[in-house]
């Protein structure tokens, strides 16, 4: 493990002073930079499981070590980079009466691993790029998004541990007022998860789907900026390094997307954006709306923002029909290739609202009004979103269309070493007047009586920062209460919360106590303090501004989490972990 410290010493060699560049070329000039980001984490997973004989409680704990090294060098107009991931399991065999009862499999038998035993390593990303005056060429792994993401939106999502890149070639150039871009490659999903357990499913390679796209952006046509694009996806049906390129010449599930957008700046006192994508699917593509398998899909998005006096008004509208069908084959691989704006508040979300987030037949809008009461200091706001979800398949709890209303209000205050970010909201999902099954009379958070066609969700978030002598206190709390109407999946109301209390000395040292609570009977974890209560403590130390060490002991609950239009059921954690992240 010590070799990367040697790299740090090399990379931190004193910089040579240079004269101020006299031209843009000199600014990009002969100088060079090298950076390394090293992320090492060791996790002790505590997993007590009861065997068929109630007197035997098997302690199936194990240790997982994960390492990610990202290296990047830029010399003049050239840049190269790589990312190497490695994972290993320890103490992973469990015997009962000399019989091996459990051994988690890290790597599937037919998958190549360059490391012996219960360990695996992979060069996840490689990149070479050249940046000229009007052209940029890129070979290897990169990310791409066209317009608002409805046709192509592949980016790393740190929040929920998703990292899929396009491995291939990309060229971008400038011709007059136009930025032009073309790309072709295979999708490269990360094999090693950094935050989630790698022992849940054996590492077995990925299906490398093919993607090709072109995009043109034009700027400065009066108040207008314009853009157009086309994207083709060819989905591979088998794993393999060259599966995507093979798929280009085969009849595989295929989606073709074409779209365009217009942006108007300062017209009629507002900034406007409108974009449309149209999707075509071949017969091999799964059809989430079976009755509409032959229909093309489309995604239309419109936004307008105005700034009258101390107010800022943002209005957004969407109409998506079979737009998420492009992601239909990617569910087992836990990522999406195209995600248009959802307009949803993703902080408080359920399996049901996640269904609306990825709906294949939905329209609606959201309006937010901010008031700059004290510029850069105090900004209260109100917002309301309304959606009409006509999709009744997939993860939806409803078998009839529903109308969703979601008003919210909040405030942002950022004073001198004091800040408050807070909001409350109420979401109502009302189905179209068809009680699904029996409507039981039972106590609930909202009182006794027969359940209705409505699901209700009340949520609030607050983050407070304030000084305590030479320390800084931070309190984060989020609470959600759910009341369910009659639906086939969830009938028990519940409350859950996540809180943290931190005392920090600048950024150097921070001590945090976390506490989760949930009464959800369907949650996949059990609390370590009580059945419904989870506690954990974390110590964070920063020996240098870009070097963080963390130690964590305790547990947190499992649950669904959505970020960037992508939702995952994340497993909980019980145990201890230590991590070190450094950029140098």
């Amino acid at each position, binding site marked *: 493990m010590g070799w990367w410290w040697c790299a740090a010493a090399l990379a931190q060699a004193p910089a040579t002073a240079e004269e101020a560049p006299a031209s*843009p070329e000199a600014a990009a000039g002969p100088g060079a930079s090298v950076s390394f980001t090293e992320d090492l984490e060791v996790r002790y997973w505590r997993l007590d499981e009861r065997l068929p004989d109630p007197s035997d409680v098997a302690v199936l704990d194990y240790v997982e070590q994960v390492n990610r090294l990202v290296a990047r060098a830029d010399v003049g107009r050239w840049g190269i980079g790589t990312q190497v991931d490695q994972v290993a399991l320890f103490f992973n065999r469990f015997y009962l009466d000399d019989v091996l009862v459990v051994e988690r499999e890290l790597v599937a038998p037919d998958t190549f691993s360059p490391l012996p035993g219960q360990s695996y390593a992979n060069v996840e990303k490689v990149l070479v790029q050249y940046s000229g005056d009007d052209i940029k060429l890129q070979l290897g792994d990169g990310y791409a998004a066209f317009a608002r993401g409805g046709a192509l939106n592949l980016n790393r999502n740190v929040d929920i541990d998703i990292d899929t890149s396009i491995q291939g070639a990309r060229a971008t150039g400038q011709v007059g007022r136009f930025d032009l871009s073309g790309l072709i490659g295979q999708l490269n999903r990360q094999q090693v998860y950094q935050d989630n357990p790698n022992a849940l499913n054996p590492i077995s390679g990925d299906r490398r789907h093919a993607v090709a796209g072109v995009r043109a952006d034009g700027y400065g046509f009066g108040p207008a900026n314009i853009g157009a694009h086309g994207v083709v996806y060819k989905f591979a049906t088998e794993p393999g390094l060259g599966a995507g390129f093979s798929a280009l010449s085969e009849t595989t599930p295929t989606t073709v997307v074409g779209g365009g957008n217009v942006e108007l700046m300062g017209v009629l006192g507002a900034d406007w954006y409108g974009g449309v994508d149209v999707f075509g699917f071949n017969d091999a593509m799964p059809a989430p709306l079976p009755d509409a398998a032959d229909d093309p899909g489309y995604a239309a998005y419109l936004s307008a923002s105005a700034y009258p006096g101390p107010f800022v008004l943002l209005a957004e509208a969407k109409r998506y029909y079979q737009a998420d069908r492009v992601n239909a084959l990617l569910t087992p691989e836990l990522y999406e290739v195209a995600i248009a704006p959802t307009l949803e508040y993703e902080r408080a979300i359920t399996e049901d609202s996640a269904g609306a987030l990825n709906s294949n037949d939905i329209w609606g809008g959201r309006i937010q009004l901010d008031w700059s009461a004290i510029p850069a200091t105090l900004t209260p706001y109100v917002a309301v979103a309304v959606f009409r979800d006509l999709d009744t398949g997939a993860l939806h709890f409803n078998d009839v269309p529903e109308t969703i209303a979601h008003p919210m209000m909040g405030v942002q205050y950022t004073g001198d070493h004091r*800040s408050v970010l807070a909001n409350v909201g109420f979401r109502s999902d009302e189905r179209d007047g068809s009680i699904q099954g029996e409507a039981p009379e039972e106590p609930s958070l909202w009182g006794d009586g027969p359940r209705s066609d409505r699901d209700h969700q009340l949520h609030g978030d607050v983050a407070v920062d304030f000084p305590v002598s030479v320390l800084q206190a931070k309190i984060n709390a989020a609470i959600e209460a759910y009341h369910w109407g009659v639906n086939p999946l969830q009938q028990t109301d519940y409350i859950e919360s996540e809180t943290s209390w931190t005392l920090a000395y600048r950024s150097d040292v921070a001590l945090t106590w976390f506490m989760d609570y949930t009464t959800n009977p369907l949650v996949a974890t059990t609390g370590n303090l009580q059945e419904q209560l989870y506690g954990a403590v974390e110590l964070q130390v920063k020996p240098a501004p870009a070097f963080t060490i963390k130690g964590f002991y305790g547990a947190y609950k499992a649950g669904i989490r959505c970020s960037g239009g992508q939702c995952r059921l994340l497993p909980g954690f019980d145990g201890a972990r230590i991590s070190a992240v450094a950029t140098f």
Partner: protein
Amino acid sequence: MFRTMVAATLGLLWSVSAFAADKAADFTLRDINGKEVHLHDYAGKVVVLSFWATWCGPCKEEMPHLQKMFTGKGGDLVVLSISTDDARSASKVKPFIMSQGFTFPVLLDREASVIGTYNPSKTLPFTVVVDRQGNLAHVASGYNPGDEKGLETKIDALLAAH
């Protein structure tokens, strides 16, 4: 084979570091009004690159301090506020900036290409200070109240150096 590839890649990177002057990598981005901005436009000035996103709480705490530095230290200091909000959230960036009354330039890094160059782990907020010679002078991840004092001290020293 694998070890050879890793060793060769790291060897190449280290050989580059042997003559590295920690030069800030040049980049080109569009601002929230569609105007093209290059890092080399600001050659000879002290430049703060502040990476943030509309969903990032600590970023929102740090930004008023950057605004004070931007308006209080004259034209030799440039603050380039770089939004890493992805394509879906692009419509939210300008309204947020307008609601706060910030006046520093705000650039859009929708594909995370620039933050990927400076901070491959893409954690936020992330702050880079570039000196008058175009060299990396300071790199910091995260923000806690009080951190701005250290940043300001660093910037003042760089502004005083000619």
